[in-house]
């Protein structure tokens, strides 16, 4: 069991879901792959299909239409799969919290494992978050 866990923490494949974000968070996520931050050092890769994913990076304010798709995508991901909420929007709906079509924050919809605050969060903050998540997974065993 332990063996699998250490393999999992060394090779996290990430699927990126935008649930109505302003696109800034998404750009910051793409920054992680650039030469300056290069998360491939840690085996983190962006994958194209949710079936390959180990982590869902969710950005955006969860509008009504996105919520339905979000649940579907989460169901399609092979477990174990962690959910990471990136950005203030995904955490708390941010400045859209009184909006007519944004009803619930993300953690009322899906079990969120990691919150990364910021508008948009810095790439360093995301790497820090991932490290914390890996440590948490390791201590939980």
């Amino acid at each position, binding site marked *: 069991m332990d063996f699998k866990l250490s393999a999992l923490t060394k*090779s996290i494949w990430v699927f990126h879901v935008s649930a109505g974000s302003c696109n800034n968070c998404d750009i910051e996520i793409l920054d992680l792959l650039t*030469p300056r931050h*290069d998360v*491939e*050092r840690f085996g983190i890769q962006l994958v194209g*299909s949710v*079936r*390959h994913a180990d982590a869902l990076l969710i950005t955006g304010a969860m509008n009504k239409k996105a919520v339905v798709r979000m649940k579907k995508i989460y169901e399609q991901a092979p*477990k174990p799969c962690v959910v990471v909420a990136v950005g203030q929007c995904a955490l708390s709906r941010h400045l859209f919290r009184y909006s007519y079509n944004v009803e619930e924050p993300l953690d009322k919809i899906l079990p969120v494992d990691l919150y990364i605050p910021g508008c948009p969060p810095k790439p360093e903050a995301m790497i820090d978050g991932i490290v914390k998540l890996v440590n948490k997974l390791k201590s939980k065993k």
Partner: protein
Amino acid sequence: MLNIIFNYLIFPGFLFSVCIGLIAGWFDRKVTARLQWRKGPPWYQNFADILKLLGKETILPSSAKLTFLLAPCLGLASLVLVATILGRNIISPSQGFSGDLVVVLYLLVIPAISLILGASASRNPLASVGASREMKLILAYELPFILSIIAIIIKSGGAIQFGTILNHQALFGSNIFSWSGLIAFLVSVLCIQAKLGFVPFDVSEAEQEIMGGVLIEYSGLPLAIFKLIKAMLLYTLPVLLIILFLGQNLTMLSVIGKFIALLIVIILIKNTSPRLRIDQSLRFFWRIPTLLAILAVILGYFGL
């Protein structure tokens, strides 16, 4: 009997070729990263990926479960056989059987067919787009690839056995140092790029447009097997090229050196070219490489 099982499962077969293939895959990622001024993953990265995939849930489509699961196994089994035949031939060229070149050519198509089968069994529309592209790609590259191998066969006096081809090269120098051999080598390097599914010929798996294409519905164990197939292709295809074109000096060190040199060529092509559309790749393969391969056959016929 025990010897055969050992050969198939451990030494030049499954275990050995998978390990070399995964390390070659890491080499590919590392060189790619260095070319882009990144640091790149650690050496055990691909092993960790495979181990992790083994621990993940496997999701099956509601239809055609058996085909979906058996397709990757089919590809893997045939590739292991190829790796075994090639490995045995490098160790002791006289032990092959007549026609093993033809057998290897057939077996090398099966991984692509297994991809098509698996993708079609998953019933995903994007996967079927990927499968149809893969099918067209096979039609495109198989013609120049086989023509360039025919040039080699003609050069070595009609031999369809690796042992004879290697002997011929040991006597008269590597095939690549003749005009027909050089042209055929260039053509087959391009075809190998397509067989490996690398840029510029990765339309069937295009991550950005059809999200992994043929592999889109695969997860867990079958996905791990497909990753192993990719890794083993990265080992078997350069070795095939070494046997056919660079077979003069087959000591351990020179084989490793040639293998790494070929890998670097493949990786450089991968990193310096953009993706071609499927119609462009088809047109490309049926024009320039096919003509070049025909030229190689003619030159080979006249013994150049």
